[in-house]
């Protein structure tokens, strides 16, 4: 019961937060120089002031700021994010077409980083002076300091020139035909490099953190109790210590989720991954205001949902988080 209440409160705050994001985004875009009229005029090959004014009247851009904002918010409430002049499509449709690709990349990269990070962290915590531990420390520093687009380009070069075993661009091969699994494997093959690139930064973070928390947990009293019960090393480490070490890692993963989403923009651009990132890049270049606003809105939505999921995961791992205490 309390759980449902807390969850409902969380969702309520999330909606308020989304509205604040909308207002802020809209205001920022409004303040930026240039508008849709310029873009349309550009695509027509130039226009004089009269034509520009006519376009502005058509799209309601001559109205006061607050009127425009109110109209925009009203439209968003009805899931209408406007019309993209550059792509000549409704923005909602445009984004929903691209969203799955981004979600696939972001979620798989985040899961890969978490899984490998925790495995490396646990392993090196058990042998703090072993070779793996030193490797993790070095790799963490490297992964964290190397810019994600640089890692991406490096992988791109190595896999296109030196070991051409994986596709380096796009998400699917249009020449391939076959049933679901053929396409599944095709997408998976395309996913490998962007996923590894995006995961590399976060993997470093998670492995460092899980190494540190795991070392602390392994020295704790209840781990000694578990050993005194005569449990095997595996049970002591993976049942008793690991579950206690996970909370900080999950918390960090939740905090980093927004960073993963923004990292995806760069990775998608490097690997021509047809997701929101590429779309954002194109629409910013084209000054396609409705599309940019739409993407910002969806990114905020993804991050907020990600944080809600983090909360849920924490509850599963640690009964002390908002439990029945």
């Amino acid at each position, binding site marked *: 019961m309390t759980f449902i209440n807390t969850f409902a409160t969380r969702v309520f705050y999330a909606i308020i937060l989304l509205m604040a994001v909308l207002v802020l985004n809209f205001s920022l875009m409004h303040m930026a120089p240039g508008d849709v009229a310029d873009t349309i005029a550009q695509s027509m090959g130039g226009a004089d002031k009269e034509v520009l004014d006519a376009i502005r009247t058509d799209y309601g851009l001559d109205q006061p700021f607050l009127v425009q904002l109110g109209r925009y918010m009203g439209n968003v409430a009805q899931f209408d994010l406007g019309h993209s002049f550059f792509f000549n499509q409704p923005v909602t449709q445009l984004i929903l077409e691209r969203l799955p690709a981004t979600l696939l990349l972001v979620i798989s990269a985040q899961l890969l980083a978490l899984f490998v990070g925790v495995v490396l962290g646990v392993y090196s915590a058990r042998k703090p002076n072993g070779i793996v531990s030193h490797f993790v420390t070095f790799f963490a520093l490297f992964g964290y300091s190397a810019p994600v687009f640089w890692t991406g380009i490096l992988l791109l070069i190595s896999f296109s020139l030196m070991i051409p075993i994986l596709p380096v661009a796009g998400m699917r091969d249009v020449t391939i035909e076959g049933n679901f699994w053929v396409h599944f494997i095709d997408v998976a093959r395309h996913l490998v490099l962007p996923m590894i690139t995006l995961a590399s930064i976060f993997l470093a973070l998670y492995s460092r953190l899980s190494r540190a928390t795991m070392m602390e947990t392994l020295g704790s*009293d209840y781990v000694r109790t578990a050993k005194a*019960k*005569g449990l095997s090393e595996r049970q002591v480490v993976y049942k008793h210590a690991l579950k206690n070490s996970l909370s900080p890692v999950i918390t960090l993963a939740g905090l980093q989720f927004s960073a993963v989403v923004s990292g995806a923009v760069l990775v998608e651009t490097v690997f021509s991954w047809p997701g929101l990132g590429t779309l954002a890049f194109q629409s910013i270049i084209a000054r396609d205001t409705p599309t940019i606003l739409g993407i910002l809105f969806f990114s905020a939505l993804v991050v907020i949902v990600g944080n809600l999921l983090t909360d849920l995961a924490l509850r599963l791992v640690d009964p002390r988080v908002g439990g*029945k205490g």
Partner: protein
Amino acid sequence: MTTPLLKVENLRIELTTRDGVAPVIDDLSFELGQNENISFVGESGCGKSMTALAIMGLLPEKIGRIASGSILFDGEDLTKASPARLRAIRGNEISMIFQEPMTSLNPVYTVGEQIAEVIREHQGLGRKAAWDMAADLLDAVRIPNARGRVSDYPFQMSGGQRQRVMIAMALACQPKILIADEPTTALDVTVQAQIFDLLRDLRKDTGTSIIMITHDMGAVAEMAERMIVMYAGRGAEIGPVEQIIEHARHPYTKGLTSCVPHIVSQLTEDRARLTEVPGIVPGLKDFGKNMCLFASRCNHRTEECLSARPPMKPFENGQIAACWHAEDV
């Protein structure tokens, strides 16, 4: 004479520290009989807990090791047993309760699961049977509404209740030996008395031998048959509790027993001003020197004490004391 359940002979444990290797337990020997309760007493840092951890095979990895001596449990030398064999004994035939009930239970599992786990591990019971047994054990350690509380998490319990859970866990497999390392230090005085009561009753019911490590002389007098006074990693005095309290043969034991306050408002001849043992336990680097390590704090000190380690002198009444002047104390 029956063979003792546990026989520790000439045990030497070395700790590797920054200053080199120090013998935290130096040539310690003692025996524990069936259904006997012995107590280890002494100040902090005298090696009481180390002895317990050595018996459990839980010395800190890479730092502590058994350098020589033997720990014979039912005739089997635990210092030579394989890790798998030690795991089979731990929690099953020898179990231990720790000083810190607040942190000794895993916060993310229910107490029932933590008790049931040890039963499943050693008795091979199924999930349901082990869980039911966990509830029975909680009832046996006098936690009210045991059936309802078995699915509680440790954070929902008080310190005294958590220590009861620890006791239930330790007794789950009816061990032959229960090691209690300062089981009441972190608890309220009233709760302390309840825990001691509980331990005494459980011992009566189950016939488990108990090794109790404590600072509490009152508890020793009440619970134990024999006591071992430890000082700086060495046995200072061993013998029946009543005799030692009556007439200690080691100046350190004498110091410890006269430290115990009695609740008497007026100072009388029976109850003189409370005394203390002056000074502190020597640092680890002094452990293992061939001299009496208590000499610096002792008012019986002579040349002999500083030049050679005193041997364990047995007395006719069963007391053994490591003091050059044991006869005169």
